Structure formats: structure tokens, C-alpha cells
């Protein structure tokens, strides 16, 4: 066991997979000599050489496209987006080429596209994206969003070994803010499996990414009033652990979905619909959603705080849910 930050967990996952499998390589902007804009790939070029840690022009289409082409040839590329916001530049390549390749022509395209996502660090409108919902309606992709260092490492390893294109959403707010003791052995966290972060019986908070810590704070607060909240850390957005969600709702009969992306058309809409379709009879109250306002993430700290979900907004929603 050794104490590891979230960002070190990502670096370790890449390094261990590159050492384990010579087909794995990293491609992106400033990932080589500089070690990545956030130093996520620090030390990798020294260890694996420029042939496997490839600095590219500022060309997200070329990064994802070259990764996809190499993947068809049997390689296991990791494509880094310097900020996950820039994945939109490669949206066509991802949703039309990489995502459809296996279904259309039977050619697996095992790429990982990863990059720093999320707000709370005053990155402004172009450096704070939570992109999951943009990709949910494109069959063929997998989407994961770890909230812990343990999951960051285990899910990245699983993503690299997966035969489908995986969008790996790492939350930059967590990079150096959380530290955990990680096992020294080679482990993976399976894609598609949620983690019941806290067991409870009165309501379910369904969330992922950095919002799990907001859920923790709210659950601590509720505890003082004798309310026991169950927290599901979804970890995988696509495919998602429907069984875990439905089981929890069947037990608590109340659910609030919490995500950092804007409300309208957010991933929470899909989960709410699924719960309404499959667990309607178990519900004692309407499904609640707590999410960002429908605005681009603003730069100024008070504006950003007003736009993003937080403990107070979550608690207000939960109080309504409990009073229903």
C-alpha cells in the first residue's frame, strides 16, 4: 500500500500498462518532454521513449484519428486531450469513426480518449466541460468518470484493456486534492459496475465524478437529522449499472440524481427515465435532479459557485424529497 494522489493514479495506470503491453502508447499535445499540461504523463517519455509517447501538432482530430487507425492495426493507444473540452474538436472522429467501427464493419477500435474535465477550478467556459451527455446517444462508446484514486487507476487499466473506444473523464479538481492508499498489485475496476459508496435506507443519491464528495458532505449533514442516505458512485456512465440503481431505489424509494454537467439533456435525464420506466412502483416521491445551471461554466468564483451544484442545493432538493 502506498499513498497516491488521483493524478498519480492515472500516471501509474499508464506506466504499468505500457510496461505490461508494448502495444500501449500515449499520443497527445505536450505529453512528451513536458509531461503533459497537468504533468499526468511525467516521466513516461524518459521511460518509454518518444516512439511511445508521441507529441503531436495541435490537432485533436489527428490525435483521435491516428489513435483509431493504430487501434485497428492492433495497437492500444491512449489519446490525451489537454482539456476534455477539446474533445469536441474530434467529435466527428469519435462518434462517426471510432464508435461505429465495430458495429459497421466488425473492426474493433480499442482506444482510450482521456483528459481533464470539470469545474471548480475557475477554468472558465472552455476549460470546465463535463462531456458525458454529449456522447451518451452514440452507441459504440464507453464512458467512465472515476471519483477516487483507486477507481482512477483501476478504470484506466480496464479502459486500456477494453476492446471498445472508452472516453475516460478525469476530474481535474481531484488531481491533487485527494490521496488514497492504493494496493501495490495489478488490479482493474470493471467498466459498467457502480460502487455503493455509502449504504443507507431513506434515499439514494446517484452521482459520479467529483460530485461524490458533495454527496458525502450532504449525507454527513443528513446523518445528524437521523436520515440515512445511500450514495451510488456510478463510475461508469456507459454502460451504466442499471441493476445497482434499481436495487437501491427499490430499497430507499427516493432518489436524487446529482451531476456537475448542466441539467437539460444531462446524463441524469437518462437515469431518471430508466428509473421511471423500471422502478416506478417503488417510488414514494418524484425523481429529483440536481445539476449545473444551463449555462457555460463561468469564470468568476462567485458566478461559478452559483452555476455548479453544491451541498446546499443538494440538501434543499433532498429536503423536498423527504417532505413529499
Amino acid at each position, binding site marked *: 500500500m502506498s499513498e497516491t494522489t488521483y493524478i498519480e493514479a492515472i500516471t501509474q495506470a499508464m506506466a504499468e500498462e505500457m510496461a505490461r503491453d508494448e502495444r500501449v502508447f500515449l499520443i497527445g499535445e505536450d505529453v512528451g518532454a513536458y509531461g503533459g499540461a497537468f504533468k499526468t504523463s511525467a516521466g513516461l517519455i524518459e521511460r518509454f521513449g518518444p516512439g511511445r509517447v*508521441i507529441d503531436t501538432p495541435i490537432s485533436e*482530430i489527428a490525435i483521435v484519428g491516428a489513435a483509431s*487507425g493504430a487501434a485497428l*492495426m492492433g495497437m492500444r493507444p491512449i489519446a490525451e486531450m489537454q482539456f476534455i473540452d477539446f474533445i469536441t474538436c474530434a467529435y466527428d472522429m469519435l462518434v462517426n469513426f471510432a464508435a461505429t467501427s465495430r458495429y459497421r464493419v466488425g473492426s474493433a477500435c480499442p482506444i482510450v480518449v482521456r483528459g481533464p474535465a470539470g469545474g471548480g477550478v475557475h477554468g472558465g467556459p472552455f476549460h470546465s466541460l463535463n462531456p458525458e451527455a454529449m456522447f451518451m446517444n452514440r452507441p459504440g462508446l464507453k464512458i467512465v468518470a472515476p471519483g477516487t484514486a483507486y477507481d482512477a487507476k483501476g478504470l484506466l487499466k480496464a479502459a486500456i484493456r477494453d476492446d471498445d473506444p472508452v472516453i475516460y473523464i478525469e476530474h481535474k479538481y481531484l488531481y491533487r486534492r485527494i490521496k488514497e492508499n492504493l494496493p501495490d498489485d495489478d488490479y482493474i475496476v470493471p467498466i459498467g459496475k457502480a460502487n455503493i459508496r455509502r449504504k443507507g435506507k431513506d434515499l439514494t443519491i446517484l452521482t459520479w465524478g467529483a460530485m461524490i464528495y458533495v454527496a458525502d458532505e450532504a449525507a454527513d449533514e443528513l446523518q445528524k437529522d437521523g436520515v440515512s442516505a445511500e450514495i451510488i458512485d456510478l463510475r461508469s456512465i456507459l454502460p451504466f449499472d442499471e441493476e445497482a440503481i434499481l436495487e437501491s431505489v427499490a430499497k430507499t424509494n427516493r432518489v436524487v440524481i446529482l451531476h456537475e454537467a448542466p441539467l437539460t439533456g444531462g446524463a441524469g435525464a437518462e437515469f431518471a427515465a430508466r428509473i421511471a420506466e423500471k422502478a416506478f412502483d417503488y417510488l414514494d416521491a418524484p425523481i429529483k435532479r440536481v445539476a449545473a445551471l444551463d449555462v457555460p461554466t463561468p469564470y468568476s468564483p462567485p458566478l461559478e459557485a452559483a452555476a455548479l451544484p453544491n451541498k446546499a442545493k443538494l440538501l434543499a432538493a433532498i429536503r423536498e424529497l423527504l417532505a413529499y
Partner: protein
Amino acid sequence: MIETFGLSRDQLLDIEYYLKLTRLLEERLVALFRQAKVIGGLYRSLGQEGESVAAAYALDFKQGDVVQPLIRNMGSILVAGARPADIIRQYMAKGNSPTRGRELNIHFGHPDRDGFIGQISMLGDMIPVMAGITLAGRMQKRNLVGLAFIGDGGSSTGAFWEGFNFATVQRLPLVIIVEHNHYAYSTPTEKQTLANTLADKALGVGAIGETVDGNDVLAVYDATKRAVTRARNGEGVTLLEVKTFRLKGHAEHDNQSYVPREMVGQRSARSVRAAPRRERLCNGRGLQGDRATRETRSRRRDG
């Protein structure tokens, strides 16, 4: 004697075989289209089959080379080994087609297994993908070359430029043929670019640019072969402009009303001249045209 660029009599006959095979297969598809047995559109390569075959013939598929066609380069995947029956099944959306009815026409093929990869319809995307295929080939020390087709329209996309630039910077073993057939659907080249030639697009990224007459089959073979050799020797990316004509509309439904009448006349005159050029391809080496035709027909029956 015409210059045959080191091609043997058998190789010349081979090229002639693929030219005829492409034309005959397309004529069969037209018949199926008119019987409403082709489910989607039918895109003719008329006028472009010569350069498609000749360019692909410059590759070494045993070495693992990969060709990526556009819709009018069916001839190139036949050279790579695609089976005519599979192409017909694809057009007819049959369950026993290579994509089991999921994809259309020549959108199929695996680069490693088949030596060709069908394009996606956002054509510019294929240049970054081919960059990745050749990057993998280099990582795997396989010394393979990639040949990507793009057009006067597709080379306007951002994806084309990103892939072209990346491949050039990385000195990847990639040859890009930019077919200049004068129309992207209905849009003429002068509305795509003000570059004097499409080969000039190579200047901006530092690649090698060259232009060749697409109606001269052997000239296309020679220019592609030289580009492939450079690529295999680590001398970088070539953008080869192939000047050609699209003799039919974008697809069978398109009557080309937007093409000026005088240009239609010019183009048919050019294609009439292109046909004797193919005959010369055989006759120039002292082969009787009839004999060549007989040989290709019999091969067609065997295939």
C-alpha cells in the same frame, strides 16, 4: 513502344484485367440498380477506374500495404483482393455481405486482414486514420505503406489538413492521392480552393506535391510507385494530384445539370481519347488487344 515503367507483360495484363473487372462489375451493378436490387445509391467510377487500379497496383499487399478508397475507387480494392461477389452483396444489403447488411457499397474491409479499409462518409477523417494505420505499421516494424484517396472536395476539410500535417511531421509512410475530378457533388473546384493545383496544398505542410494525368494509367502507376518507394524509404508523405473527370453525376440519380454543356462535350472527348490509351497499354508491348481481352475474360470466369 511506350514507356511501361518496368512493368512486365504479365503485370500489364494484370492491370488491364483489373480495369476490365472494375468496368464489368460496375455495369453489372448498374443493371441491378435499374432492377431496384441495389438498395441505396450507385456511384459510378467511370473515368476514374484507370487511376484507381494503377495507383493500387503500385502497392505491395504482401508487404502489408493498405489502401483506403473513396466511393469511386472500387478498382483499388479489387487490386487489394476484394471479391466482386462481396461488393455486390454489400450494394444489395445482403445478410451474407462482409458487413452483414449493416453498411453499404464499399464501406468495408479491415486494414490488417484485407489490405484495404472502407472510408467513412466524412471523407477527410480517413487521412488521420490512415496516418494512424501507418504509424502502427512503423511501430510494429512492418515497413508497410498506406495509400489514401481524397478528392478536390474532401481536401477542404479540417480533418484532411490535420491528418496530412501530422503524417508529414511524423514522416509517416503515407501516400495521399487527391483526385481532381472537378466536382464535389455539384460544387466545382474553384469554389473549393484558389490553389493553382491541388498538389500545391503540399507546400503548406512541407510534404512532396506532384500532379499526374489521371487518364494515363501508366503515368499514374509510375508517380504512385515513386511516392510509395519514397514512403517506404522513410522519405515522407507525398500528395499526388491525379487530374481526372467524373463522367457521371455524383450518383445515378444525379443528371449533372450543373455541369456546363461545353465541358460535358470536352469530357467525353477526353474519355474517348483515354480509351485508345488503354488499348496502347497492351498493344505498345506487342500484345494483341483481342488476346488481352480474351485472357482477362477467362480470368474473370475463374475468379
